């Protein structure tokens, strides 16, 4: 791979920066060229959370469930789902039923090597065609 091209690009950018007058800079250029001291009002973005390794993930299904799929607002999620009626009935799902659904999904995800499962309707079609 041609690594020199990045050096060439940097040189060209530096030449352009030297030549450009501040008054003629676009806002995007200004944002890119502004020294750190002047951009201190913009707080740096927090670093992304590292993903669990497959070994960690397999050893702890609950972490996969909470950490990857449900993310951080499990409580909100449960509240939302326990408010909805089960189609065709007057029943609302209990927390344990929603939990069971989630575990089923986690199990399916594990079976798929910790990648997200295919949508349910696609999986059903596949199963019925087998």
């Amino acid at each position, binding site marked *: 791979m*041609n690594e020199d*091209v990045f050096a060439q690009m940097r040189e060209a950018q530096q030449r352009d920066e030297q030549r450009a007058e501040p008054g003629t800079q676009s806002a*995007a*250029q200004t*944002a890119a060229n502004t020294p750190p001291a002047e951009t201190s009002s*913009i707080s740096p973005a927090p670093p992304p959370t590292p993903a669990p390794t497959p070994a960690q993930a397999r050893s702890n299904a609950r972490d996969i469930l909470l950490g990857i799929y449900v993310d951080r*607002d499990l409580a909100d999620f449960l509240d939302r789902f326990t408010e909805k009626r089960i189609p065709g009935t007057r029943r609302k799902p209990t927390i344990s039923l929603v939990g069971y*659904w989630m575990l089923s999904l986690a199990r399916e995800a594990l079976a798929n090597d910790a990648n997200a499962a295919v949508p349910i309707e696609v999986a059903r079609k596949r199963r019925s065609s087998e």
Partner: protein
Amino acid sequence: MSESNSATIVAVYLEKGGSTKSTTTVHVAHGAARRGLRVLVLDIDGQRHSSIWLHGEPKERILTINEVARNPDLAEEAIVATRVPGVDLMYGSSILPALAESALKVNEADGVQRNPFTVLRTIARRVAHRFDLILIDCSPTVGQLNTNALVAADHVLVPMDQAKMTYRGLTDVATTLVKMRKNDIIDRIPPLTVLLTKTESDEAKGTREIRSMIQAEDRPYTVLSHTIRYRKQMEFIWPDATAFELADGGNFRWIHLRPVAQDYANATDEFTRLLGLKRKSGSTNAGRGELAS
């Protein structure tokens, strides 16, 4: 740009195909709209994936980028609303990429010859006063239309997975920009920002190596600290809904998309701050607070 009351033009560009250019365009547009920004997606990809995603297949004949490229006076008229509030669209054309070389030479309105590299810039500037951000969804080629996009762009966003071919694609982007600068097609190299997509599938040692090469310190581009996690379900949602819509919808089936929507929200936040675009008061996600960082 918010200060000058004119949009920042961003080309979503990588010459390699399948690098999530359209997905990134649609989700960055949606993420920016959720932050209260007015966004225009200008689709110059002949596959029209982002157009179909945002607007669906047109039921009746509408003006596309094909007509507007031939006659930029139609630019305002060709803007259509999309399924996402706050995001407008100039519909893509499957014809224009094939005919770009001849179509861009002459303005059909007056029959006058013109600079074939600045047509898209003319179009974007005509409508820039109506928007804060214009995203150009480029096609995976090095054609005249893509050259137009790079000439028009204040900024280039490169979505990348961590594959060797994609890294090669990044060096190709740099090569293209350096060549364009040397030949005075552009008067400066626009700032380049890399968004890493399809992460978390990087257990392979080779993938980690590529990622560290992309993130090497002395590079003439910025790598966003937020990355987009890989979820298989993203491959199934086109063209019916965006990850934001499905994550907000509360349907249990799409729960895997919540992390993706969250990632796009964070990455868009970081990217718009980098561009100097301020979040507008009354933005749609302020009330829900679900996916806002």
